[in-house]
């Protein structure tokens, strides 16, 4: 049988934190069909979609019944305690556990449970992170202690949240992506532990100084998860938990200064992950020293984020010229429609990671300090790499990207007609549709080379 094909990456095992097994390249026919459908739907959307804005009204939804509200609150409290315990365990494991990424709790918790699980979980359950965040829990405990000792809690919570920007969060996500995708040893448990402690300390200090509400915009992952939560059917209103159809919440996303940057950084990061898995990139990165690899990946990450950003900025500028609005207004207007695409990219790249490394999480959880424990009875398990077939993974990848594209196009369409009259709205969204087609086709093409 034909042996060698293409020169591949000679770098470290895990290009994105953890995970030894990579996804196979998508078959060309699947990529072509996916891209074709995406383009076809985009053209269909122009003519056949609705002509009055619909999403915002649909996002009103209704209040959940009282028992569901109580159950949700109880579940949130339980989750908060579990997440705090897990965080402490992960940090402990990072410094006292095995130095192999496959037997340490910290890397898999950080890159799989938190980063991927947090994004998908928020898109399904809503904005749960502020209710479970360990930093928030610690800040709440500190605040309670402070009040007991007669001190004052910081005031100004409401104005903090009104004036806060997402710029620090965008920088924070970029730092996370640098650690995960550029640094040459992202799975090193000590490094992960250090990152958690440093970031956690900074966020906790801010929360103690400015109040817990500061975390909602300043916590990089919290800010991102909060945006993705717009895709979920659940939303916490002033009078309680509301339920509405999924995805329509995109209409109620209120961008701040920096929200566009945050979303573009996230999208660019996942795109760069795709670039780094191609054989072409592997040839570039082959035979380099670790820090040389880091430097190359840093340049690559910045370049890809820049390219993704340039496409969006270009599209919104073109749209602004058509409708006569300010470019920044247009950029804010359409940023929510990038969220389904960003989530779709994350699912496409990390679905198999979640399935396989998620099993590893359960195994390591039984023995986080590598002392031979078996807390959950899972210590003797092996990761079952046959749990899902590569064909299933491929379908999920293409399906997610095409669905993300469809939702993005629909959301952009709704934003467009809400902002202008029917005719200019239709023309104003063409540059955005073109950008989305490029994102989608580009994303699919990257999956060709896995």
């Amino acid at each position, binding site marked *: 049988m034909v042996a060698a094909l*293409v020169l*591949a*990456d*000679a770098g470290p095992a895990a290009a994105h934190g953890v995970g030894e*097994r990579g*996804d196979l390249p998508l*078959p060309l026919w699947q990529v072509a069909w996916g891209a074709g459908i995406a383009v076809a739907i985009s053209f269909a959307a122009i003519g056949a979609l609705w002509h009055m804005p619909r999403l915002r009204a649909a996002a009103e939804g209704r209040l959940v019944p009282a028992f569901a509200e109580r159950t949700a609150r109880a579940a949130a409290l339980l989750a908060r305690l579990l997440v705090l315990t897990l965080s402490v365990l992960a940090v402990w494991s990072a410094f006292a556990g095995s130095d*192999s990424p496959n037997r340490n709790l910290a890397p898999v918790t950080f890159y799989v449970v938190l980063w991927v699980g947090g994004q998908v979980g928020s898109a399904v359950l809503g904005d749960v992170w502020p209710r479970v965040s360990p930093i928030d829990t610690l800040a709440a405990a500190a605040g309670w202690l402070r009040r007991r000792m007669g001190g004052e809690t910081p005031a100004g919570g409401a104005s903090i949240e009104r004036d806060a920007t997402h710029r620090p969060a965008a920088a924070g996500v970029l730092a996370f992506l640098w650690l995960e995708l550029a640094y040459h040893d992202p799975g090193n448990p000590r490094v992960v532990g250090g990152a958690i402690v440093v970031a956690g300390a900074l966020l906790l200090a801010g929360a103690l100084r400015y109040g817990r509400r500061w975390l909602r915009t300043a916590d990089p992952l919290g800010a991102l998860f909060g945006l993705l939560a717009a895709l979920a059917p659940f939303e916490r209103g002033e009078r309680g938990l509301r339920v509405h159809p999924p995805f329509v919440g995109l209409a109620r996303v209120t961008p701040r200064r920096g929200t566009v940057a945050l979303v573009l950084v996230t999208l660019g990061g996942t795109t760069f992950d795709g670039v780094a898995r191609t*054989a072409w990139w592997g040839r570039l990165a082959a035979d380099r020293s670790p820090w040389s690899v880091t430097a190359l990946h840093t340049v690559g990450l910045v370049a890809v984020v820049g390219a993704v950003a340039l496409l969006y900025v270009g599209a919104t500028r073109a749209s602004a010229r058509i409708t006569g609005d300010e470019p920044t207004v247009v950029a804010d207007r359409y940023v929510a429609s990038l969220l389904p695409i960003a989530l779709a990219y994350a699912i496409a790249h990390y679905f198999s990671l979640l399935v396989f490394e998620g099993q590893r999480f359960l195994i390591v959880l039984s023995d986080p300090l590598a002392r031979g424990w078996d807390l959950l009875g899972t210590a003797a398990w092996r990761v079952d790499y*046959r749990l899902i077939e590569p064909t299933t993974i491929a379908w999920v990848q293409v399906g997610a990207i095409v669905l993300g594209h469809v939702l993005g196009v629909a959301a952009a369409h709704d934003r467009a007609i809400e902002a202008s009259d029917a005719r200019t709205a239709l023309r104003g969204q063409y540059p955005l549709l073109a950008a989305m087609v490029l994102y989608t086709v580009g994303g699919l093409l990257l999956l060709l080379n896995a």
Partner: protein
Amino acid sequence: MPSSSSRAVLTAAIAVLLTLLLVSCSGSGDTSSGEVVTVEIELRDGEVVGGTQRVEVGLDDEVELTITSDVDDEAHVHVYDITIVLRAGEPVTTTFPADIGGMIPVHLHHDGIMLVQLAVA
């Protein structure tokens, strides 16, 4: 303004496209199984002679991996969790069934340089 009938045509067209896609889905890859795939790697001065390759392997093929290293060393087939002890100058052959699909890296030690990447499909 598009009428409801043209909307119906559009929806029908999309449905047809999707159906075509689903129907044409099977038989995308070749289903050869049980073949023996020989992979030969030579290590010299800590580098793979000829560069690291990506080798296509069919699911359930037998992989015959032969590694010749100029120093005593250890290689690891990830996912399959196979450790290969290498002796200086001696070709070491390991045979295993490729029954797990995906991109499988073979590394020097646990996380050293990649010797070969097996694409098991």
